[in-house]
């Protein structure tokens, strides 16, 4: 009641629980998106999304066109991968991917021929309003679209009309709450028309009546542009632009839904279950390109920022471009003593070297000087039980206790403290005055728990096989014995050499 009253008066300060207000450092917010030139070599890992890896469709020596499918999806949670430009496949082998382990994955190496010819087999769907929803969904899947906000979850899975959980509201996530990153911001300013059209396609696909474009109030120009685009484009759909106070991690799906609708998505449930669908700005733009232009996902906008980058900015980059090449475009060639981050500073991962290709989930490339980095990550000190982490946690966990259990590998207790509900937003680590790497402990704990679960499943399967083998051997033995008895009964006992038993 009172909360509602304050909200009406505009006093609502914390639309979702916890959260922090970091220094946003959006130094690239006014630099327009520049097109990155074609690199001499493109490297496409066969897995660029959450889910199962793809299997290559091309062989060494094949000539491919831009947008041609080069790896096909395996299983349901998977989307295909397309050639980012025309050229020749020169090899298929393991190569480093943006992953904290530094491990490699099978990748398809394409040498561009410079012609950049498009594969024209996918035709534009101009009359999307009268096209079957499942055909549109298939188009989104075929074009390899995965969430471009960083998680890279296959988008077509979310674009579904479910009778039990009808989607009423589509929320376009223009929050971009991670410091440094401005790629969605620039897309909204420069491609607002396309984004609104993409949103209409999404609303048509899920049958939603209401659309909300949520933007944080530190992007006033984006709010202006989107408002103009929405007013300009009168399709009879209820779309409004909503300005929200700047707060991290508002861009996280469940937090954003809570901030806008006041509904909490229950643990283990999806936004669908509260009648909401969230889509990222970049993803929406990609859906527009896939449906209206018939272009598969072969490029994305990447923010190149950080104090070590001479010319910070946003670039439209072909997937598979080496990060070293991109940094070189921005005047950074010497990586000695620098920290390279893939994604934002809060949730991104540290990379060991820049010879790694850009993939669908690459929102930003940061290069930070060692001094800058050390200032942010000094040595861990003892917990002083100040409780700041609990206040900052957007899902109301108790990070300090949880970290203790993870550190001591008390995994069952960590699960009791809801380890698996942690979204790893990093708000707790950010506010910790003792500089405890809380999220790192949670990741460690989650990994260990997953390992234990895997071992248990393997052991259970082995046990079943072993038991099956035992019963089989027993059965064979019994059958043999029965046969032998039969043989003995039919033969007279005067034949002493009846087989070697």
């Amino acid at each position, binding site marked *: 009641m009172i909360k509602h009253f304050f909200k009406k008066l505009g006093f609502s300060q914390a639309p979702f629980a916890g959260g922090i207000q970091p220094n946003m450092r959006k130094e690239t917010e006014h630099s327009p998106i520049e097109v990155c030139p074609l690199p001499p070599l493109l490297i496409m890992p066969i897995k660029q999304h959450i889910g199962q890896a793809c299997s290559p469709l091309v062989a060494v020596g094949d000539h491919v066109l831009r947008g041609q499918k080069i790896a096909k999806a395996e299983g349901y949670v998977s989307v295909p991968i397309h050639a980012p430009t025309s050229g020749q496949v020169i090899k298929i082998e393991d190569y480093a991917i943006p992953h904290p382990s530094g491990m490699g994955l099978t990748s398809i190496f394409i040498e561009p021929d410079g012609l950049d010819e498009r594969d024209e087999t996918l035709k534009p769907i101009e009359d999307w309003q009268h096209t079957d929803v499942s055909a549109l969904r298939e188009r989104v899947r075929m074009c390899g679209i995965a969430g471009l906000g960083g998680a890279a979850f296959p988008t077509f899975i979310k674009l579904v009309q479910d009778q039990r959980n009808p989607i009423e509201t589509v929320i376009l996530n223009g929050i971009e709450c991670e410091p440094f990153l401005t790629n969605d911001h620039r897309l909204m300013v420069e491609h607002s028309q396309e984004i609104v059209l993409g949103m209409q396609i999404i609303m048509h696909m899920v049958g939603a009546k209401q659309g909300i474009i949520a933007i944080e109030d530190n992007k006033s120009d984006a709010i202006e542009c989107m408002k103009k685009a929405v007013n300009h484009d009168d399709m009879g759909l209820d779309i409004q632009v909503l300005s929200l106070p700047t707060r991290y991690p508002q861009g996280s799906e469940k937090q954003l839904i809570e901030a806008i609708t006041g509904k909490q998505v229950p643990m283990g449930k999806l936004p669908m279950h509260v009648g909401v669908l969230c889509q990222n700005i970049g993803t929406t733009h990609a859906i527009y390109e896939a449906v209206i232009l018939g272009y598969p996902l072969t490029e994305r906008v990447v923010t190149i920022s950080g104090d070590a980058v001479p010319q910070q900015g946003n670039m439209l980059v072909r997937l598979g471009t080496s990060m070293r090449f991109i940094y070189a475009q921005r005047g950074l060639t010497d990586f000695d003593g620098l920290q390279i981050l893939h994604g934002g500073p809060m949730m991104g991962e540290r990379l060991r070297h820049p010879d790694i290709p850009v993939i669908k989930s690459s929102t930003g490339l940061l290069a930070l000087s060692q001094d800058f980095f050390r200032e942010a990550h000094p040595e861990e000190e*003892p917990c002083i039980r100040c409780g700041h982490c609990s206040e900052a946690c957007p899902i109301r966990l108790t990070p300090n206790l949880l970290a*203790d*259990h993870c*550190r*001591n590998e*008390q995994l069952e*207790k960590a699960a009791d403290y809801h380890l698996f509900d942690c979204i790893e937003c990093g708000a707790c680590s950010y506010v910790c005055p003792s500089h405890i790497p809380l999220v790192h402990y949670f990741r460690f704990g989650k990994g260990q728990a997953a390992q234990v679960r895997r071992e248990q499943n393997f052991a259970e399967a082995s046990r079943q096989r072993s038991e099956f083998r035992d019963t089989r051997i027993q059965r064979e033995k019994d059958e043999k014995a029965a046969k032998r008895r039969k043989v003995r009964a039919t033969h007279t006992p005067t034949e002493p050499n009846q087989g070697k038993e």
Partner: protein
Amino acid sequence: MSVFSDFAMILLSAVLVNNYVLTKFLGICPFLGVSGKTETAIGMSFAVMFVMTLASTASWLVQQYILIPLDLLYLQTIFFILIIATLVQFIEMMIHKVSPVLYQGLGIYLPLITTNCAVLGVALLNVQQDNTFITSALYGFGAALGFALVLVLFSGLRERMEGAPVPDAFKGSAVTLITAGMMSLAFLGFSGLVKV
């Protein structure tokens, strides 16, 4: 005061003020022995609650209808121990049947409830204080409740302590005893709350 407020007083005094473990220092052995894990502590608490309540009522009956009429008060301890031992054997069989894992977890401490001085202490104090049947049952139950309370609280503390950076010299029993001592100090704060 009404009867019920009397009963409430007895319970309150047995649970908090005259807590058997922390102010009378009886039953320390299971208190330290099975407080490692909350689950076993809860199991132990129920076992002790069962034994203590029944033991105090049964011992009151024996006292009133066998020992006093026959003038056999010198056999008091033997009788009481017999009662307790029987009850413990009974609960041991029951736990083995109902929860074998708890049975394993309690280990030797389960049969050792027999020698839990708190149980015999309750039975003896009951007859010393000339309690009626109802009050002695309540007193036994309250004492068991107090035991269960501190046992579960303490097991929670110990579980937390497992991950704490305790100095090497204090690791293990040392820090456990220090914690128990501090808990006892805290419970002294209840003294004077109820005059019994």
